[in-house]
């Protein structure tokens, strides 16, 4: 067993882990380690060869690999230790991590831990699509990695289920490589990816988007041969008589992402049932003392820019924590999603000051008012011309010491104008 002791250990070397580690170092942490299971840093970014990364953060539109490169260089300059091809098997409440790579087993004692494990894609079985179980069914991200990293085309005649961003990007990518993209099927009345991706990836290439539709059956004895699509009613149940068969040899699934939190659950960190990520306070600290969370394992972000911004805060607070000995026990105020709001991160707050809140709305809506309430007191009121579940909202709220002392909950709501 190889033993190590560090100030901040970051689990996951994707964009969130990199930003958190760089930030930890900048805020004075001496010994920072990133542990990642891949042989490279940057997580999913190297396979995202389209551009659009970093626009909000740097004003320049970068490709995924370019964006990753920026942070990898920073990490290298700052002498952050990186353990690649290394899998964290477990960690415990005393923040001792057990990891393994080809050199052996590691025992890493950390002053603070930043969780940045990212997320995984939902599969066919998350939505239980009936039919046979042939080959040729891939999640969109797996197909993306085969095409862009492994130089392998999964198929020729492709149907995409789900209009998440990865699905939309992949529709265009496959088209570029000569595949027939027969359509994107979406059960909701609107696309679930960013509006700009619908325009740039589907409309610009005449790829049909079947809204209010779903796949009701998969056929094919060995390789997938066809899917049946059907229109759905307002309860998302297929409408009899609207079924249509489409021949294909490949089905890509873009059904959304699930934060990866097996390690967090194993050690007893509380998970928000809506976000699938740990419950955190304004410092992004989880319910386990000294363990912070950021990136897509906290909540699924829609742009890497916003993700990095929050991840840096996690790195900063983890560094503060690593230098302190004990948690100052304070009563937490819960932040609750109110009308029109699906979830809010952070879920807890225990300190006054400017606090960034990120949240998603339930449904697309126009002419709304965002309100943050502490009981009857309105802490913030902001007009929002347009809100959409695909676009995460980030606001800062000034929370006074009095509010912290008196309020039990804060509520975020979306009201009609």
């Amino acid at each position, binding site marked *: 067993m190889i033993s190590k002791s560090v100030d901040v250990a970051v689990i996951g070397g994707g964009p969130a882990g990199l930003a958190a580690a760089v930030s930890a170092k900048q805020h004075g942490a001496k010994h920072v380690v990133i542990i990642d299971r891949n042989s490279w840093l940057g997580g999913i970014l190297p396979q995202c060869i389209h551009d659009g990364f970093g626009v909000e953060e740097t004003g320049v539109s970068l490709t995924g690999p370019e964006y990753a490169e920026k942070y990898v260089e920073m990490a290298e300059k700052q002498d952050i230790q990186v353990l690649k091809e290394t899998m964290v098997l477990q960690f415990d409440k005393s923040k001792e991590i057990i990891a393994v790579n080809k050199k052996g087993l590691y025992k890493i004692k950390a002053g603070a831990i930043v969780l940045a494990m990212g997320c995984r894609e939902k599969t066919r*079985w998350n939505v239980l699509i009936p039919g046979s179980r042939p080959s040729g069914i891939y999640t969109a991200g797996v197909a993306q990695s085969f095409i862009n990293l492994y130089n392998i085309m999964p*198929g020729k005649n492709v149907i995409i289920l789900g209009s998440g961003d990865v699905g939309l990007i992949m529709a265009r990518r496959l088209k570029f490589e000569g595949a027939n993209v027969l359509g994107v099927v979406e059960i909701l009345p609107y696309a679930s990816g960013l509006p700009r991706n619908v325009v740039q990836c589907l409309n610009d290439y005449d790829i049909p988007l079947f809204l209010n539709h779903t796949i009701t059956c998969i056929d094919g004895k060995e390789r997938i041969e066809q899917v049946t699509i059907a229109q759905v009613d307002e309860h998302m149940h297929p409408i009899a008589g609207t079924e249509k068969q489409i021949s294909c040899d490949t089905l890509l699934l873009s059904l959304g992402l699930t934060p990866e939190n097996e390690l967090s659950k194993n050690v007893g960190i509380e998970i928000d049932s809506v976000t699938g990520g740990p419950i955190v306070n304004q410092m992004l600290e989880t319910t386990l003392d000294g363990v912070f969370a950021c990136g897509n394992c906290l909540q699924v972000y829609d742009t890497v820019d916003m993700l990095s911004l929050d991840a840096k805060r996690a790195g900063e607070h983890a560094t503060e924590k690593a230098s302190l000995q004990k948690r100052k026990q304070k009563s937490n105020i819960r932040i609750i999603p109110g009308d029109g709001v699906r979830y809010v991160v952070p879920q807890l707050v225990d300190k006054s000051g400017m606090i960034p809140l990120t949240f998603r709305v339930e449904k697309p809506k126009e002419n709304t008012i965002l309100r943050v309430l502490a009981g009857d007191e309105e802490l913030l009121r902001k007009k929002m011309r347009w809100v959409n579940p695909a676009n995460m909202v980030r606001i800062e709220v000034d929370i006074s010491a009095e509010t912290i002392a008196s309020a039990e909950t804060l509520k975020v709501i979306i009201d009609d104008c």
Partner: protein
Amino acid sequence: MKNFQVAIIGGGVIGSAIAWELSKYKVDVVVFEMGSDVASGASKANSGVIHSGINSPTDSLKARFCVEGNSMFQTLADTLGFQFKWVGKWIIAKNQHEEKELNRLQNVGIANNVPYLKVIDGSEVEKKEPNVSCYKALWVPTAGIIFPYEFTIALAENAAENNVKFLLETKVIGLKKQRNNFEILTDKGNFQAQIVVNAAGLNCREIVSMVEEPDFQVYPCRGEYLILDKNYSSLINSMIYPVPVKELGVLGVHITPTIEGNILIGPSAEFIGDAEDKRTTKEMMSTLFKEAKEIIPALPKKAVISAYSGIRCKLASEKSGGWADYRIEESKHTTGLINLLGIESPGLTAAPAIAREVMKMISKHMELQKKNNFKLKKGRIKRFSEMPLKEQSDLVKNDERWGRIVCRCEQITEAEVINALSNPLGARSLSAVKYRCRAGMGRCQGGFCTQHIVRIMEEQFNIGIDDMKLKSPKSYLFEKRTREVKDD
């Protein structure tokens, strides 16, 4: 043309069990399997239950081989190294009317020599199974669970290590009886054998019809299953069965724990025209869930994480009641053709006993001499994830491939994937890896490990991307290279 003494058609659990028995003797044996691995059909897709023998009429072959097979499993599991657990089963009666059926089953069981059967009050059952409510239940302790594919693979691999030749992806397309020999035509060439064992499962009639007019029909009957997430493993401790459905010759939708903690719900019973139609359907998924909820009211909908189906090989039609006994016999018209017909449930349990019976039939045609160099596999190899840290650490020190986790959900290492791909049968599909070491079986369903396994197949086994498949000869994984790479 290659000559064998015995040719077995079908690498399911029956064919593999016979191959394994024969591998102990000095006989030249070949197994033809049209799938890309053994256990590709019904042997893979069933409940994985080792039955006690209370469900089949006394004096039937089903009862006889089930009870005999059951008594062999503990030793088999210990030597072949597959996982096996005596979890026991409850057959629950909801009312007095159904209680009569419990008594009937108990009497059949006693007549079939099934030990330790007991009818117990609902209140007592609830103490053992807090999520199940019933009026009374029959307790059957001699029922167990295995992974059916793990058992079949263990039999076949140990047979292969003892020189039985397995020809995968080889479909028998013709059979001719010559004077003392059979000529076997396959899509990979022709072979000769003295004895042919027809263990072709659903295709058993097709094989018979190659040499004679079959005197039976096969009625495919599909059974669908739901799989529950491991998080719900504590819902039950033992198998929970309703009293059997009388009409269809099946046991009814039951709830079965698995060794890894996923609970199975099913199977349904639906006679279908196409024996290869292994579909799951929306209607049946909801029916299964509804029926399971009647047994376990606390069952949450979100617990369901997957579904599959398997096809039973029945010799009786729906109209005639769906029940027929096995036929285990040498053809009256074609000497040397041993037919194993209609081997449906409890076929998994019966397999080792049927194999012994077939040995007797073969020994009438040839002298069977024991090998003295038979290599018996002894026990199960622990997975990396099951080892204590010290043992893991030592392994990585000796071989770095143990330090590379390929499947994160199940924590399977590169060394384990390589071992799976090095199997003596030459099975090289993605499913062959999955069923041998569990890589790809976890929650992400291969999202992380598929790329790694593909890389290992390419780099260490020289499998081209055109030849990679999911589970069967034509279930190809990829279309082509994205771009042609020019060597500089």
